[in-house]
């Protein structure tokens, strides 16, 4: 069995020590595994993802992702795309962690990085939208851009926050297929927050539910 790429042990998650959003969080995630987190709004799912991404510290316990710098991908709830820029610009931003310093200074990504961006855009089916600004894309297309950016980044751990929200069933299915291919073909461990428990059970290897301040595994 491969080593976990995310280990959380006896962690308290939140902003105030006196009132943690989540307590005694235990979680392990292995490469190629998709783990879903469900639970009602405002209960701490996003805060958990932000803690794993290193954006806020855990209140106590251990949250460790034994991966190299630049190997954690994060798709925030609102996708975190640069709305005024093009699809191509947003996708190639995923290459920044791998790009040599001189290329980032002069804003000239090398041929290999450009090729990987081109492939990712093709894989998500947006080849005809490369120059279109994000603000002109539909919700589903924007999610594809966020996934393409993660493909270019080549993370070992991907954190996706509600990236299936507000989508029709057909588009959600397309995005799920993309997520599953990331896990299967690229061996990426994926932790995904979904507000739809039924849907989460259909494509996740494991589903965890936030109940009160506890994160509990859901029987399948």
């Amino acid at each position, binding site marked *: 069995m491969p080593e976990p790429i995310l280990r959380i042990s006896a962690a308290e998650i939140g902003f105030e020590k006196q009132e943690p959003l989540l307590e005694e969080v235990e979680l392990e995630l292995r490469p190629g595994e998709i783990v879903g987190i469900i639970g009602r709004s405002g209960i701490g799912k996003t805060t958990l993802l932000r803690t794993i991404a290193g954006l806020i510290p855990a209140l106590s316990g251990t949250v460790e992702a034994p991966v190299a710098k630049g190997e954690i991908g*994060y798709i*925030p709830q609102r996708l*975190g795309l640069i709305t*005024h*820029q093009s699809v*191509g*610009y947003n996708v190639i931003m995923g290459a*920044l962690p791998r790009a040599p310093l001189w290329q980032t200074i002069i804003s000239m990504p090398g041929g290999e990085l450009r090729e990987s961006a081109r492939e990712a855009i093709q894989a998500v089916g947006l080849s005809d939208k490369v120059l279109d600004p994000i603000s002109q894309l539909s919700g589903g297309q924007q999610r594809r851009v966020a996934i393409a950016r993660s493909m270019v980044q080549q993370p070992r751990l991907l*954190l996706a926050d509600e990236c299936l929200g507000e989508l029709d069933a057909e588009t959600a299915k397309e995005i799920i297929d993309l997520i599953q291919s990331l896990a299967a073909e690229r061996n990426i461990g994926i932790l995904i927050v979904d507000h739809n428990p039924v849907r989460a059970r259909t494509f996740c290897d494991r589903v965890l539910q936030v109940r009160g301040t506890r994160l509990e595994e859901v029987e399948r």
Partner: protein
Amino acid sequence: MSIIQLLKKRPRILIYAGILLLALLIATRLGINLHNLQRAWENAGVLWAEMFPPDFSVITERAQWTQSECTWSADWACSPAVHGLTETAQIAFLATVGGMLLSLPLSMMAAHNLSPLWLSTLTRQFLAGLRVLPSLVWALIFVILFGPGPLAGVMAMTLYTIGYLGKLQYEALEGVSRHPLEAARAMGLPRWQVARYFALPEASNALLSQMLFMFEYNIRHGSIIGLVGAGGIGWYLSNYLGTFARYDRAFAMIIVIYIAVVIIDQISLALRHRFMDSEVHAPRARWREIIPFIARR
């Protein structure tokens, strides 16, 4: 209704009366009285007689004295109004471009969401320091350092632009959505890359709009700094009002400045509209496509 009843019903009258009384008291202490106002009215009559009709030869005749050389053969192109306005626009352009280039990195350092607290606090204090003195006082200082002429004007306006534009820019950068920045931080990118590749493009429309506003502002203020010898149309105006006492020409210059400012205001407003976001329209930033791959597809 007696006065007491009226005051009971409308107690605010007392406050208004108090403010009016205070204003009268201050005016008296400053020596502002009807006699002075009457004398000013008489002077205004004399000034008006001297100013009217305006002498528009300032647009048609070649200037006999200029701070910078005018090489055009057409007389109107080297007239005080046209040469002065051109020089003012040139000073404003250089100051805006120079100020923008220097204020951008400073504003990224000053933005709380992009820099550590100690660095943003220090940079904000530096930018505030540049704004303490108005461009006119900076111009006075640089006229002493470099002598009269456009160089002093460019230096003065550039410094002021850095302080003023820097503040507008860091506020725009701080207004950027946190989501793209968090995605970038999660990738493990250093602060400068988060600022350069995520915050800057996201705020680009606001930054471009501010730059155009600053150019327009610098043209308006470029007319004033000439009064202390720092080049531009203000220098001619200052000479017509002071040394030569040619109020008819000064009046013509004021009309020319007014028309120029109105035209530039309108052009700037129309251009800035292209970069403004609305609920239904998020226009594409006109920043150069920085990645050649994208430009070539």
